[in-house]
């Protein structure tokens, strides 16, 4: 077999995730303590787990409607109305997907064709540009900066728009920086987009996790943006349901209708048991979410202070569960820093460069860990820095 010939060039050229590359290194070192995991350390709230058991006992294991269980679509619409003050029709404007990731995939595939450009604020999560590339499109990074709190500015956006621009990914609250777009930032972005034919894929998977009294605002709420926005979210982060693989996308019917065809041929319908459990999660587990967010917030303060105290300047994140300290003062690249930290102190954090070139000079630290775990890891990083200074 000539596999080289078999596999199309654009598939071969897709790079494996930079996060993954670093883990291959970390995994070879024994006794590593990790600050690199991007999923909650909490278990799914009991009420949702109990519902899944109940559904299994009743044997409700058939496919659901392609776009998802009607009851769940209604629940999602009710939730969005309350949470982002935007109304969607559960019949035609929502798809229950296999995680937020599938919703991102559908959005890009439904909209991008060869020659199109997808704008992606960076640093950000790693999946947007490979999907764009598979569709023959190009991801155009928009660099966000620490001095702008890693927010997307209207000026930076305007600069990158061309006649080929079709899609803007808006990944806030942001992984890896923890940045949050405030209403006024979104207003400015909306002002640039109004009157264009650009769609926004608003990846709001961390929307429930905001701190310092900041409440999440969706760009879909901003005047005349609903018609050009796909709200993408899911149950993984807020409800600690990563393994259930359940997300959703809500948006204008003409786009959702096309996305549904892709979903139908690729997925059929999202996992049935997960969908029933998700109804209960959304309807009955808001207190659990609140408790988790409270816990994250305490850890967030501890970790931000920890890094600032040890001289690694750390932007104060207002969302998600990551901090993104700057390591430029060490004179190392982020990949060097992370490799040495793993080998010398057995602590794994992710190089910022894994999230786009503009992440260079930073590392991503997850605080989805117990306080005891975090304090141990922080003190090892402190030792590492002290030894660097002496050397």
């Amino acid at each position, binding site marked *: 077999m000539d596999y080289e010939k078999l596999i199309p060039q654009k598939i071969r050229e897709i790079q494996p995730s930079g*996060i*993954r590359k670093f*883990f291959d290194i*970390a*995994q070879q070192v024994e006794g590593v303590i*990790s600050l*690199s*995991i*991007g*999923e909650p*350390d909490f278990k799914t709230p009991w009420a949702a787990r109990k519902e899944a058991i109940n559904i299994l006992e009743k044997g409700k294991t058939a496919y659901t409607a392609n776009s998802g269980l009607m009851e769940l679509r209604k629940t999602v619409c009710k939730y969005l109305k309350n949470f982002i003050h935007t109304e969607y029709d559960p019949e035609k404007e929502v798809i229950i997907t296999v995680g937020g990731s599938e919703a991102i995939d559908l959005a890009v595939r439904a909209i991008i064709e060869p020659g199109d450009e997808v704008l992606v604020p960076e640093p950000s*999560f*790693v999946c947007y540009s490979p999907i764009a590339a598979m569709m023959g499109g190009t991801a155009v990074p928009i660099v966000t900066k620490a001095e702008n709190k890693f927010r997307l500015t209207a000026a930076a956006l305007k600069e990158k728009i061309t006649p080929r621009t079709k899609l803007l990914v808006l990944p806030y609250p942001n*992984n890896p920086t923890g940045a949050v777009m405030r209403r006024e930032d979104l207003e400015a972005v909306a002002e640039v987009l109004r009157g264009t034919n650009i769609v926004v894929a608003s990846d709001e998977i961390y929307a429930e996790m905001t701190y310092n009294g900041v409440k999440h605002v969706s760009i879909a709420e901003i005047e005349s943006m609903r018609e050009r926005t796909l709200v993408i979210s899911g149950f993984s982060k807020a409800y600690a349901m*990563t393994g259930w693989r359940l997300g959703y996308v809500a948006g204008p019917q003409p786009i959702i209708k096309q996305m549904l065809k892709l979903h139908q041929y690729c997925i059929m319908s999202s996992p049935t048991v997960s969908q029933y459990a998700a109804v209960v999660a959304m309807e009955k587990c808001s207190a659990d979410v609140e408790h988790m967010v*409270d816990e994250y917030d*305490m*850890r967030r*303060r*501890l970790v931000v*202070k920890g890094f600032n105290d040890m001289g690694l300047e750390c932007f104060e994140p207002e969302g998600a569960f990551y901090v993104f300290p700057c390591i430029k003062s060490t004179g190392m690249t982020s990949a060097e820093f992370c490799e040495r930290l793993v080998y010398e102190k057995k602590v*794994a954090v992710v190089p910022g460069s894994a999230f786009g070139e503009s992440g260079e000079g930073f590392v991503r630290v997850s605080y989805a860990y117990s*306080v*005891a775990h975090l*304090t141990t890891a922080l003190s090892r990083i402190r030792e590492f820095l002290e030894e660097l200074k002496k050397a």
Partner: protein
Amino acid sequence: MNTNKLLDLLRQNARLSNAELGVMLGETEKSVADEISHLEREGIIMGYSAIIDEEKADENGVTAIIELKITPIKDRGFDDLAHTIMGYEEVDSVFLLSGAYDLSVTISGTSLRNVALFVSERLAVLDGVLSTTTHFILRRYKEKNHVFNEDNFDERSMVSP
């Protein structure tokens, strides 16, 4: 100051410094220190102790929970006898319970025999004690929210978004 949160953090780990507690609660180190002194003065925080896996610390050590049925005394109820029992230094805890028996007494000793002797010679003979039942703890699974004998395995994959 959110006192409930502070108490929760201390329940989980009483060794966090006031500075760390302050950062986590969004308070100054001093106001945490003040609040803790206040809670100590009020007797809400009674003390600080480690959660120890006694089996690992001392293989031969034994702990027993003893159920006591006792006769209450007019006007003073169960207090007199409870006070007598809690005065013994072998006794770790004394609770008055609802239900089938009255007092639950926890005792640690160096051997089964010592504990059994303590029960028969010191507790059973007290005036007002009607009966005793001794239960030896065979295994600890969880105490004060800490799970024993479980390796700290994080089932989450090292590779994740």
